[in-house]
């Protein structure tokens, strides 16, 4: 036994300590509990993985039978295989760095202990999700991380926008969860089990569904769940708003870990998806569309965190593209490298915001290169990583995906390349606007403390060198499948696209700063459309939110209560009114309405029953 349960147990203990006693503890004690628990968890992951060696097969630990009855048989199991090993390292490693960073970032904020309690709780659920050996345990983690995300987005509860963003995240995620739970039921009905091992064993000999069938349906429903959690079209709308939360939360939950849960889940269900090529195609197309759309929005945003948020959506789209074209290993590889550089981007942004006392608007920054050099250097590392400059980490993983896409359908490659160019442009646009030129704000920038710059430096190293961790090679035996041949010309093209993006950004924002505005005026309506995020939020409001709210008001209140009942009572009920005359004096004129309800219900029921009885 390697005691896998200890991995999530440490953060849970941290949560309990901070949650129950945190109010009365000093900040140092809170830090020790919060960081210590994640550190222990990280060390335990290392120990377990060292002990398990090469992990050719999944290592499963069974704890107890959760439910055993004639109906279902689910046990509470944890498992580690190569896929979850990668995720474990990312989650605990990045999580540790972000926790350390947060001690510096949150030091002036109220509710310090509460923040760390939620963060630790999040770690607990995320690790449960990753370690799960069946769909139900995974669902436990899945729901749990969603909840923590909701709590942390709304952390600044005094801001109305934060509360609204939290609600939005929750509602959108419920739609995704709805898909996931339906998929789970279908899996249970189809395969009679929720265990990964058993389900995949049973799906193995089944025929690949070239026509849509039950496996395709399962996979599409899983995809609905994944689009909710991983912010893909059409459910991505919550993620940009989620930036209302504290920046370390954005980095940990909404960039590095939780949002990749959907990617992880699809990769985990790879045997199912391999039997449903139609669903895989949908995954690829959803990913690609999301990548393009989010990247174009990212081009126009001025809030530094919003730029990176759309970038996250876009990069998640890349990961789905990788999964959809069958390169699961490349997708997971990108999960890892993305965790490095995107966490760094957010933490760096946080450091900038911290330095400027809360300013997030890029137009109010500029020339910060000299004032906060460490932040600048580390952010620059992240930028060249995400822009796909060889040989840094982003280049490695993005190229693996693009090559696989080319192998699948060349047009997907070309769209991906254009998106890569845009990615490079908007990231460097942010960097240039922030650090070059002259300072346009009024605050007095100061460099962040070591607790913040330290993690930045570590992440910078990982962003640069993380590509050399050969994840695809490590994961390949798990997923099998053919591998795209290495084509140098394709690689060169994508690198050139990235370089073009960087140079354009340099031209627009450093060399000739007026050019960008001129261009946006030229593009006119298109620019407005993109700047307003294609008006998707407004569309959702108009199409879904308002009708539902107004509908429930109009139908249930005006329609049912007033319309139907009053109609019944006034029309045929003068008799009832007389009988109720005595009751009317007792200020409860409603009783006869209620009685009318009962009568109407009874009549309908009796008529229907008589009808049913007639049908033999």
């Amino acid at each position, binding site marked *: 036994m390697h005691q896998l349960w200890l991995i999530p147990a440490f953060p849970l203990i941290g949560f309990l300590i901070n949650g129950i006693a945190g109010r009365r503890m000093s900040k140092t004690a809170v830090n020790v509990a919060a960081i210590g628990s994640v550190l222990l968890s990280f060390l335990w992951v290392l120990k377990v993985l060292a002990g398990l060696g090469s992990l050719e097969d999944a290592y499963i630990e069974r704890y107890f039978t959760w439910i055993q009855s004639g109906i279902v048989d689910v046990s509470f199991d944890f498992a580690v295989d190569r896929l979850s090993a990668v995720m474990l390292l990312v989650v605990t490693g990045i999580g540790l760095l972000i926790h350390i960073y947060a001690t510096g970032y949150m030091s002036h904020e109220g509710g310090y202990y509460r923040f760390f309690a939620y963060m630790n709780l999040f770690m607990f659920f995320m690790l449960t999700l990753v370690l799960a050996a069946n769909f139900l345990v995974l669902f436990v983690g899945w729901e749990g991380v969603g909840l923590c995300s909701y709590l942390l987005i709304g952390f600044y509860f005094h801001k109305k926008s934060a509360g609204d963003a939290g609600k939005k995240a929750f509602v959108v995620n419920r739609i995704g969860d709805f898909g996931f739970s339906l998929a789970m039921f279908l899996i249970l009905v189809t395969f009679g089990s929720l265990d990964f091992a058993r389900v995949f064993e049973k799906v193995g000999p089944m025929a690949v569904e070239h026509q849509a069938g039950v496996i395709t349906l399962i996979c599409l429903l899983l995809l609905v769940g994944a689009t909710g959690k991983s912010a893909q079209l059409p459910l991505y709308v919550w993620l940009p708003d989620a930036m209302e939360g504290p920046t370390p939360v954005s980095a940990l939950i909404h960039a590095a870990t939780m949002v990749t849960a959907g990617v992880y889940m699809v990769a985990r269900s790879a045997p199912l998806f391999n039997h449903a090529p139609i669903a895989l195609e949908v995954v690829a197309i959803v990913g690609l569309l999301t990548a393009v759309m989010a990247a174009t929005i990212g081009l126009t945003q001025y809030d530094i965190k919003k730029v990176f948020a759309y970038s996250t959506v876009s990069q998640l789209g890349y990961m789905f593209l990788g999964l959809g074209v069958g390169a699961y290993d490349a997708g997971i590889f990108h999960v890892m490298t993305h965790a490095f550089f995107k966490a760094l981007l957010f933490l760096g942004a946080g450091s900038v915001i911290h330095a400027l006392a809360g300013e997030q608007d890029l137009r109010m920054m500029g020339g910060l290169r000299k004032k906060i050099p460490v932040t600048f250097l580390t952010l620059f590392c992240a930028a060249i990583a995400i822009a796909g400059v060889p040989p840094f980490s982003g280049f490695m993983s993005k190229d693996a995906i693009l090559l696989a896409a080319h192998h699948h359908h060349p047009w997907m490659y070309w769209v991906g390349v254009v998106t890569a160019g845009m990615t490079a442009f908007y990231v460097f646009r942010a960097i240039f606007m922030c650090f070059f030129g002259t300072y346009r704000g009024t605050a007095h920038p100061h460099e962040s403390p070591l607790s913040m710059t330290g993690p930045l430096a570590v992440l910078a190293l990982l962003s640069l060198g993380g590509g050399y961790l050969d994840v695809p090679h490590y994961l390949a035996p798990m997923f099998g499948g053919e591998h795209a041949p290495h084509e140098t010309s394709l690689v060169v093209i994508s690198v050139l696209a990235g370089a073009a993006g960087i140079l354009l950004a340099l031209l627009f924002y450093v060399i000739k700063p007026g050019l960008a505005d001129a261009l946006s005026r030229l593009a006119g309506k298109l620019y407005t459309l993109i700047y307003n995020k294609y008006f998707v939020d407004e569309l959702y409001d108009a199409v879904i939110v308002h009708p539902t709210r107004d509908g429930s008001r109009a139908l249930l209140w005006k329609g049912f209560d007033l319309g139907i009942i009053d109609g019944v009572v006034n*029309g*045929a009920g*003068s*008799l009832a*009114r*007389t009988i109720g*005359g*005595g009751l009317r004096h007792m200020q409860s004129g409603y009783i006869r309405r209620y009685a009318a309800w009962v009568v109407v219900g009874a009549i309908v029921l009796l008529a229907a029953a008589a009808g049913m009885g007639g049908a033999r």
Partner: protein
Amino acid sequence: MLDTMFFYMFALLAVAGAILTITMRSAVHCAISLIASLAGVAGLYLLQKAEFLFAVQLVLYIGGIMVLFLFVIMLVNLDSAAKERQFHRRWAGGAVAAVLAGASALWLLSKGAPSFGSPVAQAAPSPDGNVEQLADLLFRQYLVPFELASLLLLVAIVGSVLMAKKRTS
């Protein structure tokens, strides 16, 4: 033949009493009409050779409950209620409702007539006599419900006492 005649007589008494109960202005008249209606039902019981039920109907409903009603009516001043208009005259609506209800009742009766010829309805009167049979049923087979019905009454009494107790404020 004589049975049939008596049946219609009692039925008429029951229905007419019921109609008068809800149409009379004075509460006392209503109560007396109700007594007539209940007496009609008692007669029907007698025709069905349910002597015990007949006796219970007379003693409990007419003798006990109705007299209590009359007491209450006389003690409580109901003059104001008596002056109020009793009906909103919506004859059209009433007629439609009555016709519909009557039609559906007829339809059900014609549809269901055969099923009401079930064993119980046709059971021959026992030589033991009605009261003995009833006692046998109540104290053997239905012992538990019979005893528990007293609990039901107890709860109801507790309730009415609680409601009637003097208010504290």
